[in-house]
């Protein structure tokens, strides 16, 4: 019912967050439109992961507001659970349910949260596993899969909820180099299909060709935000220039 509002899908306004005395998000404001792919880059400890995790309230914020699909994030409880079911999340360490098969990982959410019939949910899960290219792994447990396969399964698990947006928190950082490509391919195809995505990553190649916008964070602040071509060719801030010179030289 709120989907018709003209408001962007995700709106962060003056968000502050502390870990104890550490000020990890400083007055961050960001809006993400429907269908937009925003890549967040920045040095470690700059607050990018925290920002990503704040959007589905895995990290509560200390001040400011976060609105998703026209609604401010509710407090922990049923309403928040319902909101989270609309926001897919992919973690650095995959976090597939270790005691469930890949197929059960993907169908758990639809069955328990969406109350879909198990048979239908499994059928849909198989279709998603096909989309990410791991149908042959459906009956295996996460520990039996390679990192790249696990992360693709985790993406399928998030997609099974038919989310309105997907959050990727360093999805390729825990992968062996040869497996990064297979995961980025899936993400690129998602981006092409018009999924709203926020991606925290160090993969500048992905940022260049799949992002609509690159957001640069440093020291808890959102320093600049520009289309990838512009950001990589002529960063405005000194901090972004410094960051890019460090990562693009090798």
């Amino acid at each position, binding site marked *: 019912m709120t989907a018709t509002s003209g408001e962007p899908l995700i709106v962060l306004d003056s968000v502050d967050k502390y870990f104890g005395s550490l000020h990890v998000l400083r007055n961050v404001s960001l809006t993400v439109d429907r269908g937009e792919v925003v890549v967040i880059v920045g040095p470690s400890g700059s607050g990018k992961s925290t920002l990503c995790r704040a959007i589905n309230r895995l990290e509560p914020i200390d001040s400011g507001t976060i609105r998703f699909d026209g609604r401010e994030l509710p407090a922990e409880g*049923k309403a928040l659970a*319902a909101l*989270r079911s609309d926001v897919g999340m992919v*973690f650095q360490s995959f976090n597939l349910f*270790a005691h469930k098969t890949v197929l059960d990982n993907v169908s758990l*959410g639809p069955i328990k*949260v969406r109350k879909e019939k198990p048979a239908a949910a499994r059928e849909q899960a198989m279709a998603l596993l096909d989309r990410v290219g791991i149908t042959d792994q459906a009956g295996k447990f996460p*520990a039996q899969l390679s990192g790249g396969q696990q992360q693709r399964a985790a993406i399928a*698990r*998030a997609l099974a909820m038919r989310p309105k947006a997907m959050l990727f928190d360093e999805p390729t950082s825990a992968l062996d180099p040869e497996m990064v490509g297979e995961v980025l391919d899936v993400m690129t195809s998602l981006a092409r299909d018009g999924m709203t995505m926020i991606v925290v990553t160090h993969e500048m190649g992905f940022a260049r060709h799949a992002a609509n916008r690159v957001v640069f964070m440093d020291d808890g602040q959102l320093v600049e935000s520009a289309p990838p071509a512009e950001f990589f060719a002529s960063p405005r801030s000194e901090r972004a220039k410094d960051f890019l010179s460090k990562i693009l030289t090798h």
Partner: protein
Amino acid sequence: MGILIDRFDTFASGFWVTLQICFLAGVGALIIGTVVAVMRISPLPPLRAVGTAYVTLFRNVPLTVVSFFAAFGLPQLGSSANFLKVPVLDAIFSRLAIDLPYFRFFIIALGFYTGAFVCEALRSGVNAVSPGQAEAARSLGLTFTQNVRYVVLPQAWKFAIVPLGSVIIAMIKNSALSGFFGVSGSLSDAMNTLTSQEGLPLIPVFIGISIGYLIMTVPLGILLDQVEKRRAGAAR
């Protein structure tokens, strides 16, 4: 040593009564412990406080005192064993044909006492489950209850099974207190009857009673070792 054979029926019936106590108290302790553990990990502060208070009380008061209260304090407070007239429980008790109040009182004491230890064993299992598991479940939109039920507890049980086994073994040994709180016919009561009242020699009775407990505890210990070995083998 002839006593072991001559009085076999006394030992056997003592074993049977103790086994019943252990089974019923064990099931009760597992249920109570699970409920209290869920309370202790819940996001609601009042529930957590109740869970913590429960564990603090029952883990730190001697079982003798808890049993004493159950056997003599509860009747003093005006309750009879009738307050246990829960339909299912009642059916079990009458099926066992032991419907003495002290039997029930002691099971309550042992179950509530052991429940605190079950809770802590389970909670150590919950802590062993990677926090990412619960985060993934939350981000899918699972509620706290669904998260605990489908994601956290099924994995926590596996981590908790060995400490839980130790808790159950301790409970079986603790059940020996039953004889001192009016439960007649249990192994520990048989020990008392055979030696103090009938004046039979101590050593053979001691051996017979010990065998009774060992039959319950040793296989459990072996089973736990097996589980642990299989776990070590499965770990990568």
